[in-house]
């Protein structure tokens, strides 16, 4: 029974991380109807930023979170002005190819600049924590990652739903011409959306370095789950991503206990189930 409890707890903790990784993806889609295939690579860059802050300046991944968030926020802005703005309003195929191209480019760039070697932060502060509750062990890194994920997801949700700027971004997403009539500059709001998505993803990357390793293909693991989470939670819904993330995490954890080779199948099966009953996802609106 403890094993099951352990699996569920592990699932919740990793699920929170899945949710945060998905936030950036769902935000972009919600505002601009664009699927960012380079999302995993933005995450990877966030992980590398955190690693280099540690290896070059000795900063613990938690301490360098603001830096990491800022770095990928800037990356998001760069991506918007450099690539996305040029394919806005063009065919969806062009948009897909554009973000996919950025994915390939960033992976190649990472390998070129930093070699394909796996980079790990050894001995982060989070490592020293360990909590034991009724036979269930909660590792420091897992806990820190989950707490950081929950806080960041909440912050983004709050910003988007409770502030004027957040409202402006959502307005620009819903109806750009009506928004501009209200004095909102849609292009600027789009760029801001990319900046926020970048910041959230950067923070996710920094949090991940507490327990994971970075490499040019580090984004693959998490972005796969991010896509499942976004689709399951509903494209564009941050709350949906939060719920879906936890569901996917727990499903994988529990299935991992009884049928370990089917953890991926479990996540996808869950998605299939929900989408058959509710095509727009759990909390999606379209």
């Amino acid at each position, binding site marked *: 029974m403890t094993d099951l409890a352990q699996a569920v707890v*592990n699932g919740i903790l990793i699920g929170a991380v899945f949710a945060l990784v998905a936030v950036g993806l769902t935000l972009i889609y919600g505002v601009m109807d664009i699927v960012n295939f380079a999302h995993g690579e933005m995450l990877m860059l966030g992980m590398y930023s955190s690693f280099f802050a540690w290896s070059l300046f000795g900063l613990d991944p938690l301490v360098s979170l603001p830096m990491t968030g800022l770095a990928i926020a800037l990356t998001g802005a760069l991506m918007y002005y450099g690539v996305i703005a040029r394919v806005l309003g063009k065919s969806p195929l062009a948009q897909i190819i554009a973000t996919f191209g950025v994915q390939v480019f960033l992976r190649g760039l990472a390998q070129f600049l930093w070699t394909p070697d796996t980079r790990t932060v050894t001995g982060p502060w989070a490592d020293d924590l360990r909590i034991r509750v009724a036979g269930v062990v909660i590792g420091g890194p897992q806990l820190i990652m989950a707490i950081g994920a929950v806080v960041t997801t909440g912050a983004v949700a709050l910003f988007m739903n409770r502030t004027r700027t957040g409202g402006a971004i959502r307005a620009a997403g819903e109806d750009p011409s009506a928004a501009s009539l209200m004095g909102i500059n849609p292009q600027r709001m789009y760029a801001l959306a990319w900046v926020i998505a970048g910041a959230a993803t950067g923070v996710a990357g920094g949090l991940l370095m507490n327990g994971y390793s970075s490499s040019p293909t580090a984004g693959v693991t998490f972005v796969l789950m991010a896509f499942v989470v976004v689709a399951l939670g509903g494209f564009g819904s941050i709350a949906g991503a939060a719920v879906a993330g936890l569901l996917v995490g727990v499903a*994988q954890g529990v299935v991992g206990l009884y049928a370990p080779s089917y953890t991926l199948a479990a996540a996808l099966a869950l998605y299939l189930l929900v989408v058959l009953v509710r095509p727009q996802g759990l909390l999606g609106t379209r």
Partner: protein
Amino acid sequence: MRHNEGQGPVRTQATIALLASIAIGLAGCGSSTGGSADQSDEVKIAGLWPLSGSNATQGNDVLHGAELAVEVVNGVYDLDLPLAREAGLPGLGGAKLSLVTGDTQGKPEVGASEVDRLVTGGGITAVVGSYQSGVTLTASQRAERLGVPFVNGESSSTALTQRGLKWFFRTGPSDETFATTMFDYLAARKQRGDQISSVGILHTNDQYGNDGTTVTKKLAAERGLQVTADVSFEPTAADLGSQVTQVRAKQPDVLFVLAYTDAAIKLMKTFQQLDYYPPALLAYGAGFSDPAFLTGTGAISNGAASRAAWATEIADKRTSAKTIAELFQKKYNAPMTENSARSFTAMLALAQAINDAKSTKPDAVREALSVLKVPSDQTIMPWDGIAFDDKGQNIQAHGVVQQLIDGKYRVVFPPEYATTEAVWPMTKAQSK
């Protein structure tokens, strides 16, 4: 009246010019490489490895091993290794080896299409590659269809030499050989009084992981050991807590592990988090052989053991191995690993076969490979030598078992290569 009288000389000139240009063109064609260029002074070998993707570190390392072999053959080195002392291949008039590389990206279908691209492009005598067993599987199948020898040094899945292919040769040990070495090690430990009756397997869900599991189960049955846990994980799994929990519940005496670098690091961290270590952990190389694994895990992986086809400590027992290891370090600013050592050896064996065949015709090279005999001291490996059976497997290849002690791998088995005593249980290596 012949009204075309004036055109006679012009037409003749045009005809002569046309014939001359055809003749020159044919002469030019004659020296470019075709499918079987016997007179070419360059022997082209296609090398296919994952130069991008999640195994790019190992792919580049293996490429370097092969490159170094090409250099040793082409240059003049005072080494007790075949073809080292002469420049190029004497059997082909000093022809030099030329390595044409392709990137498999770590994907089986890309490996196969790269074989297609390079071989049908013309001039390729043989193919070497491709690190991941799953990619070597498809790439060598394509080579078989194209009738070109495929020499593999560093893929260990047993399935590769169970297909009855005529053109596939593996110089390195198979997972069955490695498993035999590991089970021999276990037998030796049992004789010293360690408890060994149950065995668990924790493996990545791919060709390498699944074939290794099959082989482990087979040998366990033969040696009277019970397999109490068989737990797999997706190569891209983000969390391995459930899997380790499962293993812990079964309490195997020995845990066999098959995992690439990211998963290997994650695994050790999960063991530490759950405060559970099996009494012995025996890995089938891969991630556990990656230097990034050592730097990434530090002290928490002390006590883990892995099979290896080669170790730097072997270099200390054999001069040619030491020199090659030093050359490698100098050229690539990184230590030679068991992967680059194996690819080095595979390339050298292929070069020997081409030299013996005195031809670059694929048929002749294949024939030469099938009867190739290299004595142990003419290799840099801890083997009895190189000799292929009718399935293309080098039956004289062996592995060693090395254990992480104080952050460094030390050979602990077999006794003739061991440099220190094994630490059992593995937690003893942790508490230092």
